[in-house]
Structure formats: C-alpha cells, structure tokens
C-alpha cells in the first residue's frame, strides 16, 4: 500500500472550522446502492438507511481519519508479513514485454 494513495481532502493538521468540517463534498452516485464523497470514500445510499439503521454524521476530518487509518492498517499488515511487496503490475509488464514479438532489425 503506497502512502500516496491516501484519500484527498484536508490533512489531519489543517485548522478545524466547524462549518467546513460539517460540509462534506457533494455526493456522487457510483452504483445503484452507493455514493462517493471524498475520493475513495464510499457510502451506502442514504435512502437505504432510513428504517432499521440511521446514518451517522461525521465531521470531514473523522471520515478522512477512518479512511486513512484503514490505509495505515493495511500498510502495517504488509510490513508485518513480509519485508517488501512486489507489485503485480511490474510482473504483468514484464510478461507482456516478453510476449511481444521483437520487431525484425531494419
């Protein structure tokens, strides 16, 4: 998990302003049952949380903190299980390079 894959939005050390914190980015529908606010932050469609479970309101910093914690957790797990992660994209690029026929010399 690379750290530059963190969700966008103000950093944890940004000054706290109540109104700003309680105005999440406008939601964008991404599927029939989900929407997104910050990049990589997905939420259940609010219409599905009206009867048995009500949606909680989070300040933006907390939403982002939860997302970042998850990224931290996953990065920690990788380091816990192995010294380094080899990316699949490297391997894929390598086999695609090898399977591309070499053009004949001009």
């Amino acid at each position, binding site marked *: *998990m690379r750290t530059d*894959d963190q969700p966008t939005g103000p950093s944890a050390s940004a000054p706290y302003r109540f109104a700003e914190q309680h105005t999440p980015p406008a939601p964008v529908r*991404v*599927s029939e*049952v*989900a929407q*997104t606010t910050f990049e*990589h*932050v*997905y939420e*259940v469609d609010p219409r*599905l*949380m*009206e*009867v*048995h*479970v009500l949606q909680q309101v989070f300040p933006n910093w907390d939403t982002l903190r939860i997302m970042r914690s998850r990224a931290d*957790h*996953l*990065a920690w*797990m*990788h380091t*816990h*299980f*192995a*010294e*380094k*992660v*080899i*990316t*699949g*994209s490297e*391997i*894929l690029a*390598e*086999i695609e390079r090898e399977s591309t026929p070499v053009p004949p010399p001009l």
Partner: protein
Amino acid sequence: MTITEPAGPIGTAPFTTEPLSDDRLTALVRALRPVLADDQILLAKTDRYNRARVPAPFPVHRWAERVPDVVVMPTSTEQVAAVVRIANEMRIPVVPRDGGTGLTDGAVPHRRGIVVDVKKMNQIHELDLVNRTVTVGTGISMMKLNERLAKHGLFYPDDPASYPCSLVGGRIGTSGWSLIGSRYGHTRDLVLSFDHVLPTGDVLHVGDGIGRKISKSSSGYSLKHLFMGHQGTLGIATKATLKLFPKPEAELSPFWAFDNYEDAHACTGALARAGVATFAGAVLFDEHKVAYLRRDDEAYIPQPADVRALVCSVMYGYEDEVRAGGKRLFRIAKEHGARYLGDEISEGDWAARHDRYATPLHGRTKDGQVIPMSWHCEDAAVNFSAVPAVSRAWHEILADLRRKTDVFDDWGMFAYTSAATGVDYLTEIDVGIWEQRLDDKAWAAWVKAKRDIGAVALAHGGSMSACHGSCREGEVDLVPEELGRGFDVMLDVKRSLDPNNIMNPGKYLLDRAYGRDTTDENR
C-alpha cells in the same frame, strides 16, 4: 468391614444446564482459593457473561443458559492442572477458552461450570534462534508473537482470518487452518509440541514422539494430532513450542477478475496445480461474493458489472523466487481470460484477509434497507472438482432461508486452497444474521440449514469443516455419519481420558461415551 468412599461424588458430571447450587459453588470457590489468587477467580456477572459465547450468532434470548458459574485465569500449567483436578474430583464441567474466536461453540460452556481463560499465560518462555523455535504460553496471539519475532527476522506463519485476536491455544484446540498454509502448513504442522492438562489433571507433554522441538518422529504412536482439534473435550494446552520460519523477503498477491465463475474456478485450479514453490494460497470469490462486495466494499463498488468472479493468489519468499513464480502464475491467469485488478485492490484486499473479523456488520432486508447483522461463516473441506456443485447447493439452502425471513442474508462464498497441490479447499459461505430478531423458530430453521450445509459437503466427498470444527447444533448431528467407525474410536478415547465427562461436556455427541444420547436435550 469399613468402606472408604471416594472423596468426591461418584459417576460423571451431571447432564444438566442448571447453574451450580450455592453450596456447590461455595465449595468450589473454597477449593480453588489455595490454588489461585483472588483476582484469578472471577465471579462477577459481566466476567461470566462475556465468556458465555463466541462471535458466531446465537439465539441471544437464551444467552443466560450458557453462562459459566466461575471464570478462572491461571498463569501456569500447574495452576491449570490443579483447577482441573478439583473439577474432576467435584464432577464440575471445565471449559477451556482462548481467543474465543471459534465459530463452532468450542469455548461455549454448554453445561456451565468453570471456564478456564488462558489469556494470562501469554509469556514467551524461550526463543531458540539456533533451532528456530519459540516456546510460549498458549494465551499469546500470533500477531503479538510475530511483532516480537520480527526483530530477529523470524516469522510464525499461522494465519487465520482472526489473526490479530485468536490465540495459540485456541489454534491447538481447534487444529486451525491457515490462510498461507499451502506454503507453510497449518497449525498441526507448525506446533511442534505442547504441555497439555488432561481431564484428570494429569499433565501430558505431547509432540512428535513427545519430543520438545522435534518435527518428525516415528517413536511410539503419533499422539500429537489427537490432542489438537478436539475442541477442548480432551483437555487444555498450556505451553507450546512452535516452528519458526525466516520472515519472507517479498510478497506478491495479484487479484484477477473474470466475467464468469467457470473460468475463475478453472483458473484457481490451474494456479494451485502449477506447483510454484512460493505459492502460499489461491482464493476463489463467487458471484454472490462479488455482488456482496460491490454493495459494501470500497474497493469493489466501482468495478464494472461484468466482473462476476475473482481469483487471487499469493506468494511469499525471496524476491527472485517470487518473481519467477509470479510470472508463471500471471501467464496461467492470462490463459484463463483473467483481467488483473490492479495493485491497489490486490494489495489492499490481501492485507485485509488477515483480519476478517473486521467485516462490516450489516446486511439488507429483501427490500434493500440496511440492517444490523452479525457475521457467521460455515466452512467445509471440499475437493477442487466439487466446489461448484457445493457452492450451488449451499446458495440454494440460503435462498430458501431468506425466502422465509429477513433474518438471514447470503453474503457469498470464498474457496481457499488447503494444500499446495490444490486437492481440497476451505469452502465457506458467509451469512449475515439479524441476531436481535433470532427467536426459537428462526434458530430452528438455521440449525436445519446448518445440517443441510454439512450434508452437502459430505455428499460431495468432503468433510464438514476444514477449520472451524463441527460441534455446533445442526452439523454435529452428522459427525457420526462423517466419521463412521472413527466415531466409535472418538468415544473410546474420550471415555478413557475423561472418565467423569467433566471436560467441555455436551460437545461432539461425546455424552454417548457415557451411555447418554443428549443430542436433543441440551439445545
């Protein structure tokens, strides 16, 4: 003529779920006092209720029926042995409890009595860097242990879905399955030996040939495995010596998407059968699982609709070996029509697999509304060729339940390789259960569904569990069918080692060893 009566009551522990009488409880606590400090004997309601259940959903309205009379927290093998000896003399049930993460009620005190919580036995007794072993109290978690071992470049690769919270002792009692067992072996292979308190309070050291740090012996009968996976019915492991590996230099965990289940299934088989040396496992996600993830998992929500099945494979080892193996598996995946899902999903999802107990705990009513649900997982050991048929049959069983009630939700299935050759898979169906709405009727339907799920595994030549055990209501009814003549051997072993039926009684139909068929009376 003078007849000397034995000190305690004669016969087995009573076949009852009633709490101890005040007199018996007082006598028990009095007997425990010389053995344990005051803070090791817990009588408070919260302490006892917290150790009455495991994470698997159960009929909450009957919680009070399985609360132990006393919880003890010993700190040594000697203390455990003394407690068990007292329990055996007084004919009071004893139930060992480790992480309490099991899904088949192994740690649940069906007949109350004494719960032995091993969490205080969490020391690292010896780290042997030359022979690559560590000796620990069974109350330690694999995660905490590995944090310590990492300083020495070492690694204990027992990796259940409850990795951060399950304990070494529970892994022994259940003979657990490991996510990366196709490379490193499962708990039975990784635990070299252990001290074990028998139901009489005798202490047995058991290993390969009863060695301490020996992985392969042929001296005498092979007894180690008998004392693993018994769900606490044959005693309590207190101190274990584990086999250590070098911490892997590199990890590679590609995830691939397929537009149909059949290709994904075929690809999983081909990946496992390839025999890549660093291969640590492959996982097949079926269509129901993909649908569930696309509903609730950040990584999968934006996936295109033609993604119908997923496969992942994981390799651990030196970078040069992993790269060689990785190229081979990528080529195989390509031949099967796989699309690589990208580094972010691949790495993120794999890392999340070590901690599946953090699964989102909500489901949906049939009309789509979100409901709070608990997670349950039914597993079986199924041959590669039988995975599709078992999957279809299991989804049918769940669909039938859901047609009747919103209490159950089908969260899809995974199939994980058990072995490097891909012969069999831990096949699991995740079920959301609206626990607050469970009543006797819904519970009965669920127990029947569990029995049907087990029967499907057996009908396809599998075993009812690859990891969890099979002592919960429903599946347990089929244990004699699964084991056949072996079930009689179980009864013989149980009776001979636990003459008074005090050790975790009421499990695995073992009451039959004492002339009682309590199959139905303890529900």
